[in-house]
């Protein structure tokens, strides 16, 4: 456990938890707080996050001092809710923003707070969730399983192995991570199956020690969930739209590569995309309002599947939070 920071949820004081969580519940019920993937607090009536409201601060050190919780746990829990919520402008709603989403998804906004065992050390929860999440992506029943290349799968399994050693207190030398990252980047270069890009990018992003990466996990997770959501809606598209979506993924990947090239990184996007005419056409078509409307319609049809994936991740996270209060697992 060397290098692990220790926490004590609500400093072991049930009254402190009741007061802080009660404050969030009251605002959440009135939709006066918004789930965000980062701490946000202000007193001028502007938008605030759940975690910001919990500790009445947006300074990470103050959040830890007041709540006894890791900042990244709040960011992850809120990030999960945010990933399943939709937002639209509405002048009658608080902050001019209407939030919609499945009740089971939105309910997690309070569920994670209610689940926190007072006095527990939750410092290991996010790293453990990262392990569980990557494990679920590698499972044979995962939706994208058939699109994960053997090289990417091998790298992902190596990450899981190194994280297990790290979380059980065994030292992992930086050289092992460097070698794994190089392999993950090589595996990502495979231009093969466009539906495999999301997992390969996820795996290369995760090739770092779990505890150090935990504060950066939310945006990685959110990008992946967005890609997964596209994958899940694809069966509801026409063959032509599915082809546009696939080709645009190829085009956007080529664009990312061109941006990394010092010789071309400053060139306009249009010029860079122009090198791949087929992909350029697909990206342009994808951006058109009518294509977006059809994709949004397919997204609605696939919503329950996306929500199901997200809800399972929420259940897994809630269990890790609850388990942290049990003596046999709290030390890990």
């Amino acid at each position, binding site marked *: 456990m060397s290098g692990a920071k220790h926490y004590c949820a609500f400093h072991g004081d049930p009254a402190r938890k009741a007061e802080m969580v009660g404050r969030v519940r009251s605002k959440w019920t009135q939709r006066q707080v918004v789930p*965000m993937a980062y701490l946000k607090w202000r007193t001028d009536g502007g938008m605030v996050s759940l975690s910001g409201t919990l500790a009445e601060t947006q300074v990470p050190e103050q959040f830890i001092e007041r709540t006894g919780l890791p900042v*990244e746990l709040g960011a992850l829990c809120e990030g999960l809710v945010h990933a399943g919520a939709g937002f639209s402008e509405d002048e009658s709603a608080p902050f001019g923003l209407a939030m919609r989403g499945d009740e089971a998804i939105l309910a997690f906004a309070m569920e994670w707070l209610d689940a926190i065992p007072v006095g527990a050390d939750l410092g290991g929860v996010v790293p453990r969730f990262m392990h569980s999440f990557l494990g679920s992506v590698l499972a044979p029943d995962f939706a994208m399983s058939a699109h994960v290349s053997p090289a990417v799968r091998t790298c992902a399994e190596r990450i899981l192995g190194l994280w297990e050693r790290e979380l059980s207190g065994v030292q992992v030398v930086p050289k092992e991570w460097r070698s794994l*990252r190089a392999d993950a*980047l090589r595996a990502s270069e495979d231009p093969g199956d466009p539906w495999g890009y999301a997992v390969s990018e996820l795996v290369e992003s995760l090739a*770092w020690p779990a505890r150090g990466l935990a*504060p*950066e996990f939310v*945006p990685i997770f959110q990008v992946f969930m967005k890609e997964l959501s596209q994958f899940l809606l694809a069966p509801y598209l026409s063959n032509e739209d599915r082809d546009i979506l696939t080709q645009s993924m190829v085009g956007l990947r080529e664009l990312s590569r061109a*941006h990394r090239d010092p010789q071309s*990184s400053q060139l306009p996007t249009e010029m860079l995309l122009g090198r791949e005419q087929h992909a350029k056409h697909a990206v342009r078509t994808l951006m058109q309002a009518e294509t977006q409307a059809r994709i949004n319609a397919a997204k609605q049809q696939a919503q329950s599947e996306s929500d199901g994936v997200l809800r399972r991740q929420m259940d897994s996270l809630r269990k890790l939070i609850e388990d942290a209060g049990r003596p046999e697992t709290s030390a890990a």
Partner: protein
Amino acid sequence: MTAQITPVSDADFEAEVARSDIPVLIDFWAPWCGPCMTLLPTLEALAPMYDGSLKIVKVNIDECPELAEKFNVQSIPYLVLAKGGEATATLHDRSRTRLASELDALLDQDGQA
């Protein structure tokens, strides 16, 4: 770790960036920008990795519109590698793996790392 990302304004840009002996990664951001806030932990993780070979600073575009204009900032977060106060590259990736890979290549190219 936050202290390793130096906030820079119009007033100290010359001293912190233009006259820096080592390349500077400038993060153009704003407090209302969600993606900027979620990128910050990644930059904080990168800072100690390049200690002595790269300085990382952040510029609040609301407070420093002239700097944002000088570097042609169209959207944020916007990451620019600068040498002698001038942009030498724009970084588009956002994951630590890709940013480190890109920085390694750019710094090697300049003979700095």
